[in-house]
């Protein structure tokens, strides 16, 4: 009797576990963008800033291309270089399709990020990356329109004086100028490539 109870007590949890694995629903593959998706997509807020190529940089000029919008600053030593390195990898994976993807790096540190400094900094990752700067008022308006947070804090590196804590997500804008996706910091390169390819296909 005791033996039967013991065997039953051992078999019951095993049977329950087996039943769980047998009947559990397998995770459905994600459809659409793998990153954050805006529903419905709205017109990406327009801006016109000073480009790192010495020309005026207007979002409108990039209609027909898929735009990745990043907010950061060149003195950043934590988030921005990681993201830019990540995007360099994304560009490599995209191959020839990368020519239809434009990265615009909007500074959150207009005091130090001149167009020249932006150009030098971005060229170290990919010469096609574009930087954008402007007056604090112009940049503040762009940040507000995208819901980006940026504030000056004391830097851990005394030589720098200050750092800027800022939103670390990337924004994806489709060929029609619609704000379609939000890519959280740390999203794997393959997922970003997947979403960019999807946006490239949709508008071509």
């Amino acid at each position, binding site marked *: 009797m005791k033996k039967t109870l013991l065997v039953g007590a051992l078999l019951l949890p095993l049977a329950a576990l087996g039943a769980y694995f047998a009947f559990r629903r397998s995770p459905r593959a994600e459809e659409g963008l793998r990153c954050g998706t805006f529903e419905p997509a709205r017109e990406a807020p327009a801006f016109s800033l000073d480009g790192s190529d010495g020309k005026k940089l207007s979002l409108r000029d990039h209609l027909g291309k898929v735009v990745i919008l990043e907010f950061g600053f060149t003195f950043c030593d934590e988030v921005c270089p990681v993201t830019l390195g990540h995007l360099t990898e994304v560009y490599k994976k995209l191959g020839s399709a990368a020519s239809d993807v434009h990265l615009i790096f909007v500074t959150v540190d207009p005091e130090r990020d001149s167009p020249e400094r932006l150009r030098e900094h971005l060229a170290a990752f990919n010469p096609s990356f574009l930087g954008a700067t402007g007056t604090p008022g112009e940049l503040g308006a762009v940040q507000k329109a995208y819901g980006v947070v940026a504030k000056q804090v004391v830097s851990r590196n005394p030589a720098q004086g200050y750092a800027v804590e800022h939103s670390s*997500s990337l924004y994806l804008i489709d060929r029609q100028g619609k704000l379609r996706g939000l890519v959280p910091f740390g999203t794997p390169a393959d997922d970003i490539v997947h979403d960019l390819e999807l946006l490239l296909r949709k508008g071509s």
Partner: protein
Amino acid sequence: MSSTAAGALSDVQPRDEDGLPAPSRTRRRRLFGIVVGVILTPVVCAAMWPVTFDSREELFEIPKGTWARRMAGEKREILPSEIHLLVGIRNVLMLKNSDDVPQIFGPTLLMPGQSLRIPFTRPSENYFACTAHASGQLIVVVEATPIWPWNRLSWRVRGMLRRLSGP
């Protein structure tokens, strides 16, 4: 004489300090078994019962009229400062603005009627700048699906403790 007295004593039912009949050893064992059963049953159930949800989405919504109520001085937190998700079964963060005005919600600005759906596919801790919180941060903790009984138990206990400790 003494043997009679001893025999009489052995028939007397043992009594406790209040003079009431003390529970027999069998009754004590039974009581102990019931107590252990009452404690163990929910623990075993919490460990064995699979973690399931009706939807993969964890929805947070700004209800209509929130802005007007805030302007009137009402303080109400809609988004907790820490959100916990599970890979594969509860891995989508859904933020929806049902108010009449644009709102900064979590990591971004949402227009009236707009939503942001963010799926998370890997265990991770995600930090988003968010002005809605005093800390200025929204943390999304994505955990691996608890498959083994011990993981399920620990996940359920942690969830219960979080609920008890409040938002």
